[in-house]
């Protein structure tokens, strides 16, 4: 079986983030970028399918050349090969434009299953996996907290606010996973060394046949117009408890003053 894991480069949660005031895209100069933490779970799930079903796994990333270390990082977990979509025409794409480019890249690949993370930690829009499935005319079994492949069938437990739905579909299919699905392992030293020499296929929008009037910032359907840093919080009331729990009454007073009681 063949599996593709799309991944994303995101700003490190712990680092500084800025949006370039001129082009309104994430300013990546001088900020720490990482493999999206949710992708550790989608990669782990793919590695498990390698182990249990002998799956061949490719990782796919859309982003500039400078994002290649993210692909190498993904490969170090034991994935087989990488595909990068990189083109200036794609810069600043919104979620729908991103989905169009990823769908085109997938059309050029063979796969039974595509495993996304359910969200990226930057904008947390969550719409790319289902939009890709729609473009490709495939089922979207997203928010998986459990995933089983049996022959040409996939069963997923889709997590939602009240519990989960058990859903099933034939392959090929698009899934996304939530972090409850597994415990990601760390890459081994051997994996890190091997990742350096694994095949990386770099493709442009033209290579993939992406219609450039559908992607990129100029063609985004949802447009960022303004942004501001969240104003810093004013210091609150901090009290030290003397071990008797007497501060609980002060807290209850405060809660009452704010009408929470």
């Amino acid at each position, binding site marked *: 079986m063949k599996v593709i894991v799309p991944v994303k480069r995101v700003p490190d949660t712990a680092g500084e983030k800025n949006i370039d005031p001129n082009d309104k895209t994430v300013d990546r100069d001088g900020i720490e970028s990482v493999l999206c933490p949710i992708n550790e779970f989608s990669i782990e799930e793919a590695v498990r399918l390698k182990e249990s079903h002998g799956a061949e796994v490719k990782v796919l990333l859309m982003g500039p050349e400078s994002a290649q270390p993210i692909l190498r990082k993904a490969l170090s977990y034991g994935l087989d090969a990488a595909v990068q979509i990189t083109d200036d025409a794609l810069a600043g794409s919104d979620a729908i434009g991103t989905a169009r480019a990823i769908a085109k890249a997938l059309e050029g690949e063979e796969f039974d299953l595509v495993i996304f993370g359910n969200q990226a930690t930057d904008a*947390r829009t969550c719409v790319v996996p289902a*939009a890709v499935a729609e473009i490709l005319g495939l089922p979207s079994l997203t928010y998986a907290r459990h995933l089983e492949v049996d022959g040409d069938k996939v069963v997923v437990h889709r*997590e939602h606010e009240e519990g989960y739905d058990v859903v099933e579909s034939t392959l090929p299919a698009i899934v996304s996973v939530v972090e409850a699905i597994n415990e990601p392992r760390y890459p081994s030293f051997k994996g890190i060394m091997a990742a350096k020499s694994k095949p990386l296929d770099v493709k442009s929008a033209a290579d993939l046949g992406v219609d450039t009037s559908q992607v990129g910032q100029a063609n985004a359907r949802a447009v960022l117009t303004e942004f501001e840093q969240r104003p810093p919080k004013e210091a609150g009331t*901090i009290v030290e408890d003397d071990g008797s729990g007497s501060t609980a009454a002060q807290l209850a007073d405060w809660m009452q003053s704010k009408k929470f009681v």
Partner: protein
Amino acid sequence: MGELLVLIDHAEGQPRKLSLQMLAAANQVAGQTGDTVSAVWLGEGGAGAAEVLGRHGATKLYSWNSSDAFGYVTLPQVEALQQVIDTSGAQVLFFASTNLVKDVAARLAIRVEAGVITDATGVEVVDGKLQATKEVFGGELITRCTFADGVKQFVGISNNAFVAEETGGGAAELVEIDVTLSETATKAKVTSVEKQVTADRPDIAEAAIVVSGGRGLGSEDGFKLMEELADVLGAGVGASRAATDAGWYPHRYQIGQTGRTVSPMLYIGSGISGAIQHRAGMQTSQNIIAINKDGEAPIFQIADFGIVGDLYTVVPKLIEELKARKG
């Protein structure tokens, strides 16, 4: 004059709180544009909600009374909505920014050429264009987004960002619709639905108050204390990743960078140090209370009220105090 559509999210025949909040968001926009607000109910029980939806500002209610709406994955809802959009000519759709509904919006956006903005915490019309406020990077940046000209506009509304309001309208006019599903729509089946939420405790995404526990609880038992506090306040219970990874509380209640985002009126964190990964999931809460032994814990930097102390001493006393004040 056009119609603004609001896709009603519902459970057991009742619209969820968020649906009434979405109607408030739509009313606000309609007040600026002169459009009318129409609700869309997919699944059984829509007719019974015509009155409450009307009271909250919906003049029309499109209802597809079918168990197929949720019998297959996503596509039946997409196809039904597509039909409503095609017949009504509506350009704007408000939807619940929740896991499963975001998929409906995503797939529909491809079909009807729409832009999608999720997790909006504000909406307004500026220079004739619909604009939404959205927080990104775990609430560190506040952005305003709008749509390209000529595309349909889908706006996902966050829980608790709007206040539900009755507008004095009568029951919404019921428009029954019938949908013939495509073959593709029935390919992925829902074989069972597992409810895991305790009936009398709200989900953390919807709750006005969230009580959350972390590593400092020390054991699974600590969550019994968290639940006791939550129940005094009518709150939902969440957990940090350290606590869910330790197996003390189910993963689906994990708040943070890789888990869920909450933005309640009040967040109470006990035994949570407030690592950046956790803060990314809760720092947009309107009020934050922190109880932690470690006075250096970063959560105190964002707390409106913090207690440096042993949660096992403070929280039981707090429960007593709250019970006494409630009478």
